[in-house]
């Protein structure tokens, strides 16, 4: 296996806080690798160590076979980095920002000028190239930031929370750019607090909490481990009859692995939670059975497990609090049938 990042036993402490606590993982060449975790989980610290911005306390880390500590100079030549803060200069135009960035990488003046145009095309900012950044939207600024991270044709691109603070439309747009870069062969390491982003972009990911990796793998298989889809049924409040009827009717249906009544902390009040293997094929059957018995269902919801469920089961906390606080919509994979 061709690994471009190899990290073993990485540690970084600030006083009593273990920002990165014995973290080991590897990133394969050509993939999009994600670090998913809430604010303060240690994602930024990890990415700052990998980009040579801060030193580690112990452990080993190598980028494309180059040691982070002894060969930091060489590492810097093969990586690109877009920070969470969007490190572009608002007093300059987009072209000037890119040109100066090229020159930091010792690209000749002539080549830099070509490179600037090429990059402006990549992130679709050619027309806005001579405008000062103070007139740019958040999405445009983020795209320019992405472009500045590309001046050196990096083998690996580090993106620290690339879409934090963007609205859903701009977020999706940026995802397309990231995917496009990856298709052209750039390995991408990104951190995110959005499970949807990790789900959409990452080929493989680590879920990180309080400096530790709590899970690692392909998003699909992490979710599959959560034990399949669930259907939630809600009935009219204060009437216990439909619940009993539904329980009886659904018991013999094949494919339903578990039926339990809603508890206080569930979304539904007077209802049932069915754990099933494959939601979309069982759903019609459930509706038919209930309809045949004349059971009155107030609401019926199909949910497939999200990375948040994975996170919840591993840490007892939810990621969604952050997403909502950041104006994100709720889990996209939740379909609702009334």
């Amino acid at each position, binding site marked *: 296996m061709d690994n471009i990042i190899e990290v073993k036993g990485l540690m970084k402490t600030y006083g009593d806080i273990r920002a990165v606590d014995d973290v080991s993982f590897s990133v394969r060449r050509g993939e999009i690798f994600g670090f998913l975790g809430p604010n303060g989980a240690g994602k930024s610290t990890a990415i*700052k160590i990998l*980009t*040579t*911005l*801060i*030193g580690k306390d112990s452990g080993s880390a190598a980028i494309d076979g180059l040691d982070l500590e002894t060969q930091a*100079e060489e590492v*810097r*030549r093969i*990586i690109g*980095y877009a*920070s*969470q*803060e*969007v*490190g*572009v*200069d*608002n*007093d*300059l135009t987009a072209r*000037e920002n890119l040109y*100066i*960035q090229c*020159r*930091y*990488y*010792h690209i000749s003046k002539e080549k830099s000028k070509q490179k600037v145009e090429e990059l402006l095309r990549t992130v679709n900012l050619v027309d806005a190239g001579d405008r*000062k950044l103070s007139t740019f939207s958040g999405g445009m600024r983020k795209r320019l930031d992405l472009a*500045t991270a590309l001046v*050196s044709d990096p083998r690996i691109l580090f993106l620290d929370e690339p879409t934090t603070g963007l609205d859903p439309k701009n977020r999706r747009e940026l995802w397309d750019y990231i995917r496009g870069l990856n298709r052209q062969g750039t390995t991408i390491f990104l951190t995110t607090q959005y499970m949807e982003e990790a789900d959409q972009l990452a080929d493989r990911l680590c879920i990180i909490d309080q400096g530790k990796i709590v899970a690692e793998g392909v998003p699909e298989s992490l979710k599959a481990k959560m034990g399949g889809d669930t259907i939630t049924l809600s009935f009219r409040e204060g009437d216990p009859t439909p619940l009993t009827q539904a329980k009886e009717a659904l018991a013999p249906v094949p494919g339903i692995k578990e039926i339990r009544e809603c508890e206080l902390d569930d979304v539904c009040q007077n209802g049932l939670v069915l754990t099933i293997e494959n939601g979309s094929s069982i759903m019609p059957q459930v509706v038919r059975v209930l309809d045949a018995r004349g059971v009155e269902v107030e609401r019926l919801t199909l949910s497939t497990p999200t990375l948040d469920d994975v996170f919840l089961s591993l840490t007892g906390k939810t990621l969604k609090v952050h997403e909502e606080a950041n104006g994100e919509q709720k889990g996209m994979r939740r379909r609702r049938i009334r």
Partner: protein
Amino acid sequence: MRMEWGSEIGVVFYRWIIKLRRQPIYLFFSLIQPLVWFLLFTQAFSAIGNIPGFEQITGTSDYITFFTAAVIIQTIASSALQSGIGMVNDLDSGYLDKMKVAPIHKSSILLGKVLSDGVSIVIQVGIIIALALIVGVNIATGVAGVALILLLAMAFGIAWSGISLFVGLQTKSTETTLSVGLLTTFPLLFLSTAVMPKELLPMWVQNVATLNPISYIANAFQGLIIRGFEWGAIANAIIVIALIGVVSLGASIALFRRAVNR
């Protein structure tokens, strides 16, 4: 390697010059106070020139002429001591991280910055000198003297900027950086030979003034403005500037490099 280093400093310098061109108003902010001094202080205190012995010691009985050196120094100091603010802004915006990830020397990032400060200081001092000529100050050494003053001002400005860089990188706060600049300029100026010839200062201030680097810069400027090329004083000023520069910029670069491991 050496060429790379030079071009790195050049690029960093280029960026700051563009920023300066976009926001020329900053050039005038740090000129306001020296201008007020120049135009009001010298009027109110013009009688100082008539103190017995003043003319024998300084070579002029015109206090404005004597005071021009002090205003130039104040201009340099107040401008240089804002240098760190740009650095703190880069730190906050994440721009500095971007530079640190690029394969350039840490020293280039700082030296490019202070060189650009040197340029804005030359412009500011040029404005002050023009104003001095307008209000009737006669510069004894002529055009060559003015060129030398500008050169010394630039060198002193670069060296003095290093102090602000250090404070900015250490405190990471624009407020602290700004107030350190404001709070140190005045005492240093008044405890030097910039506002009053040494012989007329109280004894304890004379002792402090001897240790105060500002005095040596002031002596060189005063000589060039009032009397002529006093190479001894100019050499002293150059030594003092070099010492300040090596210490302030050396410490800033060391601090900047060390910050990588935190």
